[in-house]
């Protein structure tokens, strides 16, 4: 299929301003937030109606042209990286909140609506949408569904999959399906779970019904310092063992505290080896009681100092450092690479210490600022892409960290998705039968493999090559895992 033919076909059936094909117009779409990976698509289609999406899908389906969907392009795993032989389908113009139903506590929204816009619109009814990825100002709800996005408040409120009720989707052959329902469940298989986090490989979402929760009466943060990461890790475990589920429980290690402090004046204790930010929300009575208990637990775990936010302004100030962590890294280092593994919490201290060893071994600094409450690590590797070989070493170090997560019973991605980035590490987490099963599922939805091909699930061939690369001194890194 020639480039010109597909563009001609699209232009014949779609308005001219909905199809971009000049190189300079394609450039802004060449990558998502994982900018190390870039590719230009044949064309970018920016439809304005569901019918236009259906037409575009039908053309691609007939001509066997890959389709990559894109929301705001804030994804961190290359999930919206264009296919050089395909079209990029931008859902940016689907940016309408269709309806808020305060009685049933739901909102029907289009996929291009930003995460934060939903909560802003629901605020008038005392309601909000719980998942809050750190990019919530910009990221689209459609992208959140594709990645099963998380955020700071997952421990208590769950991921995207726990907070949506229905999807309207188009399959690759243009068939519209309702997944889930306006009730709490739907007849048949739980396809809502299957589609959430499927990284655009199964269908194109054109409408989402999200659940809304009542805004908590009050939220307060306890900020505690510790003189070792181990003590902070113990405090995390002890808090949860005490029967409290914090709304958020975040950890920053010494390098992260220093980096943030250089960027904005946080007032974080500078001498701490680690600090914990523990947010509690609910009714005032509940929150006060929980704060008392958390303080006790932190003291027993060896907290060297503790502060409780006295008002909303102070709560925001406590969070400001955490929220500024990523831009702060940008100030500290020309480039940084954000990892996203999850581990059972009990291995927190062990894994963090191992990461430090790896950091020294590779001579690349690592800052840790992450969702300690649910064991979701975000090691940030600082590097300089202009130094020859440094990106490659960074990726190798990142891979090692993810393999470590799998080794202790965790996963290679907690919330960012596999995309292009972690495709090789999928070979470490899953064996050939499991990967083949995933391919068979894909087959049930998209037999010609046109939706976001090459992402999320590696081919068995790719894994065989990756496995061969990973043989060191004649020994496989994970002898317990099946190889192919």
């Amino acid at each position, binding site marked *: 299929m020639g480039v010109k033919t597909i563009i001609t076909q699209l232009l014949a059936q779609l308005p001219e301003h909905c199809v971009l094909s000049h190189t300079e117009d394609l450039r802004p779409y060449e990558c998502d937030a994982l900018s190390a990976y870039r590719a230009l698509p044949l064309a970018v289609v920016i439809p304005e109606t569901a019918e236009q999406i259906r037409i575009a899908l039908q053309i691609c389906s007939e001509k066997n042209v890959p389709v990559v969907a894109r929301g705001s392009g804030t994804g961190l795993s290359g999930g919206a990286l264009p296919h050089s032989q395909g079209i990029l389908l931008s859902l940016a113009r689907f940016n309408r909140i269709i309806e808020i139903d305060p009685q049933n506590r739901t909102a029907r929204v289009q996929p291009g609506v930003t995460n934060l816009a939903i909560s802003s619109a629901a605020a008038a009814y005392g309601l909000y949408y719980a998942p809050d990825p750190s990019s919530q100002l910009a990221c689209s709800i459609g992208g959140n569904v594709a990645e099963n996005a998380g955020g700071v408040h997952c421990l208590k409120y769950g991921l995207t999959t726990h907070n949506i009720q229905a999807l309207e989707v188009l399959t690759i052959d243009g068939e519209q399906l309702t997944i889930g*329902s306006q009730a709490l469940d739907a007849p*048949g298989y739980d396809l809502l779970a299957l589609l959430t986090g499927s990284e655009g490989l199964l269908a194109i979402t054109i409408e989402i019904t999200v659940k809304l929760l009542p805004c908590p009466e009050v939220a307060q943060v306890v900020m505690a310092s510790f003189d070792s990461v181990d003590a902070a890790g113990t405090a995390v475990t002890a808090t949860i063992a005490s029967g409290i589920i914090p709304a958020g429980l975040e950890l920053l290690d010494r390098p992260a505290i220093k980096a943030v402090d250089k960027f904005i004046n946080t007032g974080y204790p500078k001498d701490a080896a680690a600090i914990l930010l523990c947010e509690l929300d609910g009714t005032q009575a509940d929150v006060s009681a929980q704060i008392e208990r958390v303080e006790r637990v932190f003291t027993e775990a060896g907290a060297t100092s503790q502060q409780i936010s006295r008002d909303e302004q102070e709560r925001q100030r406590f969070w400001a450092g955490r929220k500024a962590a990523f831009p702060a890294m940008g100030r500290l280092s020309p480039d940084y690479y954000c990892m996203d593994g999850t581990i059972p919490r009990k291995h927190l201290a062990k894994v963090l210490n191992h990461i430090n060893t790896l950091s020294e071994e590779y001579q690349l600094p690592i800052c840790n600022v992450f969702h300690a409450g649910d064991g979701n690590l975000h090691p940030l590797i600082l590097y300089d892409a202009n130094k020859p070989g440094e990106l490659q070493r960074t990726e190798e170090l990142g891979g090692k960290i993810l393999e470590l997560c799998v080794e202790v019973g965790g996963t290679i991605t907690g919330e960012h998705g596999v995309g292009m980035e972690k495709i090789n590490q999928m070979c470490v987490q899953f064996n050939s039968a499991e990967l083949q099963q995933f391919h068979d599922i894909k087959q049930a939805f998209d037999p010609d493999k046109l939706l976001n091909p090459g992402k999320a699930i590696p081919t068995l061939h790719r894994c065989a090559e990756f496995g061969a690369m990973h043989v060191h001194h004649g020994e496989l890194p994970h002898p317990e895992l099946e190889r192919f």
Partner: protein
Amino acid sequence: MTIQQDLQQQVQSAAASRSPLVICGGNSKSFYGRATSGDTLSLDGHQGIIDYTPSELVVSVRAGTLLSELQAELAKEAQMLPFEPPHFGETATLGGCIASGISGPRRPYTGAVRDFVLGVNCINGKGEYLRLGGQVMKNVAGYDLSRTLTGSLGTLAVLLDAHLKVLPRPPLETTLLQHCSAATAVELFNRWAGQPLPLSGACYLDGALYVRLSGMTEGVQAAVNTVGGEPLDNATQFWNQLREQQLPFFSGETPLWRLSVPAATPPLALDGAMLLDWGGAQRWLKTDLPADVVRHCVTAAGGHATLFRGGDRDSAVFQPLQPAMLALHQRLKHSLDPVGIFNPGRMYPDL
């Protein structure tokens, strides 16, 4: 040979001879779904808790483990299965609980069975052992098949082990009772659910509204004043009987329908006895009305209806799917169970 290998072998030989298997845990929910037949594949011997570290809020359990045994272990650590699953008999197993996907009164406020399934180990229709999902709270590697297996009534795979998220048991629970009309009950349920109240159950039966509040002592006491009503004695027994369908409402031979509708739907005009649960989102209807009359009314309200108990078990027990949706279900089933040996017809005639 391990039990797992033995089960794999049974599946492989059933696949080779294309003989259907009826997957069986404690047989406590055999009344649910459509009638099916085949050789029994029993998970009876596959029992026990594999791993339980209370501070992780995660438990890994073999499918044949008695639900009561698991809950007793969690209770020792002041934790619970947050979806409050019905047992429907002393022999209920965890595998059956997940395969049926039935949640109890707490569901609208804390989540359904599927919300707490972090991962499963299972056997597909080729007899292959698969590990899906994982043992951690946040995990987006691979398709989320473990949640899709939840509630699939054993038609996709044989569930061997499950990793579940658990939660601390609330220190205090209080139930309040007030008398009102069904319409007022629906209104109150949804008004409360829109406020930050520690709700954990809300049902309406015979002119009485029951609301359960759970949480820390301070928060529950504050909420009692907002919600109002008289405290209910024997509240634990009431919610248990509601969950287990042992209230007098559930007795008799009249077919029992489960109506799943948007919570704020006003009382439905259907002949028969009605009980509202899940703050209005799940309604139990005892009626002899024909299926199409029930479904017509429920579909118009944006919901779906299941013939939960009684009636014709060879009929469309679950709400029929649109042709394109049924075709997708069939392709999905085929991808996991290519020969179609797992519980054929239990969910839909052509599945």
